[in-house]
């Protein structure tokens, strides 16, 4: 895959979608479906989480199977802070992202010394450790999770109001997407994409490859923590299932459906997956069979194939 370049058309399309999304709460109110405002927030939060994984997998070429750890840790941070009386979003959310980034630094510093399947497995192992650690701590709710009784507060904004919260989420997502778009075209973005394409060559050209990958991994992890902080506000519960490896898998599914290595891939994937879940669950409880088949088709039939997008997958010597 070549270096990412966003076309004017794609930007215009994104702008149109943004306008529609801004209008969505009013639209839903007219239709007396205000419940879906909160649901829309949830979708956008997952879009954010998937986007951060896309930065790591799609742009950085690091197939991390433990992204849920950062997502979940962000959620727990906010819930734990709220439990001890810290409700300010201005404090809790950056802290959640910071703690997730710190964890990513630790995990990345060790995991990025391995390659290929061992990297997949070691990131999974770290995520499982976090999962079991949280399960074990009854003061953090153990397997019941930790309820967030009050949403974070943000100055004069009333985040308890579903529409206000939705707009905050939308603003943050837009910000992250814009930043990712800038990043993809920046020097740093070109470097990590080139590392994805040919790591040994980048080393031979004199790039400290490890450092670049680590920075990318940490940014992805930190922003996933932010997504987690938002999610716990939406759902009101930091649950261990956010840390489970199936959650990491689900995020991967989202970016593959939406497009690996594309700025909007995570958004498209999350929206499609969650909308399908919402609607097909009503039609048939067994809709996951359909999801599985669609996923298989995407993997097998995608014109370039996911392998086509990643030449590095099988460079076994």
């Amino acid at each position: 895959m070549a270096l990412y370049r966003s076309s004017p058309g794609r930007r215009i399309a994104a702008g149109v979608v943004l306008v529609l999304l801004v209008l969505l709460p009013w639209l839903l109110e007219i239709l007396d479906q205000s419940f879906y405002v909160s649901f829309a927030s949830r979708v956008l939060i997952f879009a954010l989480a998937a986007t951060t994984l896309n930065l790591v997998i799609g742009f950085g070429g690091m197939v991390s199977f433990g992204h849920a750890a950062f997502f979940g840790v962000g959620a727990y941070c906010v819930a734990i802070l709220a439990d001890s009386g810290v409700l300010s979003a201005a404090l809790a959310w950056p802290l959640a992202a910071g703690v997730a980034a710190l964890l990513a630094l630790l995990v990345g510093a060790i995991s990025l010394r391995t390659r290929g399947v061992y990297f997949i497995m070691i990131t999974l192992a770290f995520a499982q450790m976090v999962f079991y650690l949280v399960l074990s701590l009854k003061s953090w709710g153990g397997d019941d999770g930790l309820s967030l009784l009050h949403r974070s507060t943000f100055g004069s904004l009333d985040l308890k109001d579903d529409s206000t919260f939705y707009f905050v989420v939308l603003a943050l997502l837009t910000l992250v997407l814009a930043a990712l778009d800038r990043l993809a075209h920046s020097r740093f973005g070109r470097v990590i994409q080139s590392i994805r394409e040919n790591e040994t060559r980048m080393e031979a050209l004199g790039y400290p490859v490890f450092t670049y990958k680590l920075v990318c991994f940490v940014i992805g992890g930190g922003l996933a923590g932010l997504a987690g902080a938002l999610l716990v506000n939406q759902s009101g519960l930091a649950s261990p299932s956010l840390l489970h490896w199936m959650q990491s898998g689900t995020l991967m599914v989202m970016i593959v459906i939406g497009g690996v290595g594309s700025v909007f891939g995570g958004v498209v994937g999350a929206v499609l997956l969650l909308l399908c879940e919402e609607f097909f669950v009503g039609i048939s409880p067994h809709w996951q069979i359909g999801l599985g088949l669609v996923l298989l088709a995407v993997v097998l039939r995608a014109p370039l194939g996911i392998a086509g997008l990643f030449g590095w997958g099988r460079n076994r010597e």
Partner: protein
Amino acid sequence: MRHTKYLSLLAALLVLGTSIHAAEAARTSVKVGFLSTLSGPGAGLGVDIRDGFNLAIKHLNGKLGGLTAEVLIVDDQQKPEVAQQATEKFLKKDKVDFMTGIVFSNLMLAVGPAVFDNKTFYISANAGPSQYAGEQCNPFFFNVAWQNDNLHEAVGKYVQGKGFKNVVLVAPNYPGGKDAMVGFKRFYKGKVGEEIYTKLGQLDYAAELAQIRSLKPDAVFFFLPGGMGINFVKQFVAAGLSADSQLFAPGFSADEDVIKAVGAPMLGMFNSSHWAHDMENAENKRFVADFQKEYGRLPSLYASQGYDAALMMDAGVRDVKGKLDDKEALRKALEAKHFKSVRGEFKFNTNHYPVQNYYLRVIGKDAQGRITNKTMGTIFTNHADAYVAQCKMK
């Protein structure tokens, strides 16, 4: 870009699909959000509650208090986050009038705040956490079954009376399990060899059984609902422990669902309950007979609780003449308890938990040769829970 096209298409679908439900009918129906554990090791309990509830609706000709009953059934998969999402949907999208069905106290505690904030009545057909009986008691929470501690208190009293000296306690590590230990110990004063907490949903008890063997207790009290209890009893017997230690359990771990799965090893086990299928009252006879006819099995105490929950809603709605929006009146009506429970007489305490009798049952063979529970006597009469004093109901 093609993706964005799909996106807007789906947004349009979303709008279309949901607008169909939008037409809200005038008050001719009652909506009940039934959220219960219908999959996984705890599924048996949820299924029994559901079937009991549905049987009551059937007996009431599909109505609750004269209004058409609309029961929305959702599986919580025994996961707090699933329960919470489903609850949000019940409250905000479906705008239900009542919620019921939750089996496990941890899930109850997870969804409770949202339900109460929304001023929706929750009629618990099972979970009776101590929190909601005491300091966190709430005008919108009613428990039609028992407080978690009660059945365990009854076993504790019986074990104490029988003179056992060294008891090991086994319960899952969740609020209901903790309540079980506390309840048992409130009336059992002898030595507790060990309090073993297991993971909720655990199925292999090899490590715990080895530990019990090394402790050599004369009795083992276990509270492991559903599939957990089935496996525990089977493995307990397989490990050869039944020769040295007598097993005791609350009715939860010794009811028809467990008996059916385990069979003969259950014979002779004493347990406690607030209800039994052989209770002699007209309501119960009809309930037990029709339940067997409908589902081809004996009802468990869970089924009786589900049945009572529906009866309770029915009485409440009838008393307020369908004016469900008058929450204050509806609460008073529910507190008044104008229905006949299959367990016989009981009344609600100030914390909305029952004051009722608890009985001793033993598992044996009945006249038809079936292995089943038989009521032996009364352990407590008009027993209230231990937390009511802490409840300052607004």
